[in-house]
């Protein structure tokens, strides 16, 4: 293909993208959020079973391995620990192996933190921003439990793993051969992808919240009758646009989750990631109570353009990068 130097997105889409970015900055600037920039190449990285960061070898002055950031989360929390009240960032995030209609290994992430916000206020601000960008109206909130009750017919927090397996098989979902019958989160995700997600955000944007504690990632777990993570995701037309946490503050708990994620990574045949980080020092010195949200900007622009692939809104997606 001798024409592969040209951009994939149309110029109309590139102009639309720029216009959305201006609106986004206006939204945060007018609410006294400070725009910040943090390293893309860092000594620290998020330790997640399902996120595969690239690392860079070579001569980095101090000789240590540097990680391309899968999100600016760690560095932004360090700024919050030092006293920031409200910050946002538009950054490139890079995640290995993620390439498809809704994924590009390198993508534009919008991430923000606001101290004093709990999950409720966090969801409110996210809904407002989404409406400003897409004119899609107010979001409805649906708990993870309600969503499973409605679309799967079971309680995701209490059902035995074997019930999840039985429902998946009865629903004629094609099950990956290597999905272990004890991998509870794997089965919940399979049910979510096949039976729940297609219905989320069809009429109006939907915020799914209250994830199983095992899928808390870096969210606080609220210990009520059964432990539920204060994590939320916004969906439009079955597409996930943003992920937010009422942030975990306890460094001991982060250490425990890092070790657990690394154990799962090793069981999955992946390499371990460094468990120590400057974020732990920031948490030890004290993080404010806060909510943080990350939004996939390319997907938002894709929906605004009425496109179905993120590549349609990128000048040079991965296969032309």
């Amino acid at each position, binding site marked *: 293909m001798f024409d592969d130097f040209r951009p994939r997105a149309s110029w109309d889409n590139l102009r639309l993208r720029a216009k959305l970015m201006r609106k986004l900055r206006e939204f945060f600037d007018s609410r006294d959020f400070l725009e910040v920039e943090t390293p893309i190449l860092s000594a620290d990285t998020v330790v*997640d*079973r*399902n*996120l595969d960061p690239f690392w860079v070898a070579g001569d980095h002055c101090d000789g240590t391995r540097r990680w391309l950031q899968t999100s600016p989360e760690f560095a932004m929390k360090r700024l919050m620990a030092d006293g920031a009240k409200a910050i946002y960032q538009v950054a490139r995030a890079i995640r290995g*192996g*993620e*390439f*498809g*209609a*809704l*994924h590009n290994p390198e993508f534009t992430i919008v991430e923000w933190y606001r101290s004093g916000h709990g999950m409720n206020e966090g969801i409110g601000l996210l809904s407002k921003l989404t409406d400003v960008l897409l004119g899609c109206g107010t979001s409805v909130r649906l708990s993870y439990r309600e969503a499973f009750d409605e679309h799967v017919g079971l309680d995701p927090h209490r059902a035995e793993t074997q019930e999840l397996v039985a429902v998946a098989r009865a629903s004629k*979902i*094609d*099950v*990956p*051969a*290597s*999905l272990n019958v004890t991998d509870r*989160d*794997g089965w919940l*995700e*399979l049910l*979510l*992808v096949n039976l729940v*997600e297609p219905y989320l955000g069809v009429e109006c944007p939907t915020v799914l919240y209250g994830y199983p504690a095992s*899928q808390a*990632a870096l969210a606080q777990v609220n210990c009520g009758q059964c432990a539920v993570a204060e994590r939320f*995701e916004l969906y439009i037309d079955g597409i*996930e646009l943003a*992920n937010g946490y009422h942030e975990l503050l306890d460094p001991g708990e982060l250490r425990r989750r890092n070790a657990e994620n690394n154990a799962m990574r090793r069981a*999955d*045949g*992946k390499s371990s990631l460094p468990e120590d980080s400057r974020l732990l020092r920031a948490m030890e010195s004290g993080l404010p109570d806060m909510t943080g949200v990350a939004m996939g900007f390319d997907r938002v622009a894709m929906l605004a353009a009425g496109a179905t692939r993120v590549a349609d809104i990128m000048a040079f997606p991965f296969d032309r990068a």
Partner: protein
Amino acid sequence: MASISTSDFRKGLKVQIEGDPYLMIECNFVKPGKGQALYKCKLRNLVRNTVLDRTYKSGESLEFADVEEIDAQYLYRQGDIFVFMDNDNYEQYELSAEQVDDVWKYLKEGTVCSMVLFDGNPITVTPPNHVVLKIEYCEPGAKGNTATNVTKSVKLETGAELSCPSFVEMGELIRIDTRTGEYIERVKE
């Protein structure tokens, strides 16, 4: 046998599943929130032409299928065996009547077909989109009737029966679309 892992899955890949060769006709990368990556694939069975939906989890892998397409000339039929020859290297291949299926209707000596080999063995043969065959027998046509909507059954030189406009005559050559199995036109010798 070499294998290919999910991260290299893509449309157009030829893989083996339970001993059969498949063509990956679709591969959708799906990743829920912070969850595990799934690859939702559609695969066409290259022998039976059926479509299979399969979901793979990252870290899984499939075996490559050694599949190649060659041009093969039809030589002759011996009972239930159809014999073809690779035009490049004169290698001969035999297919059973079951493998040849309906294609026999269009096969006369010298017809060059497209043949798919799996592990070096023929699995399917596809005739050219258009073939020209002689009418071996038919009832005489009504003189002057050029309407194409009045049809009759004719017997071709391959032994196949075909529905043709009533004006065609015994001994004439006709062009046939092998994809639809329909008469197209008469051909002057």
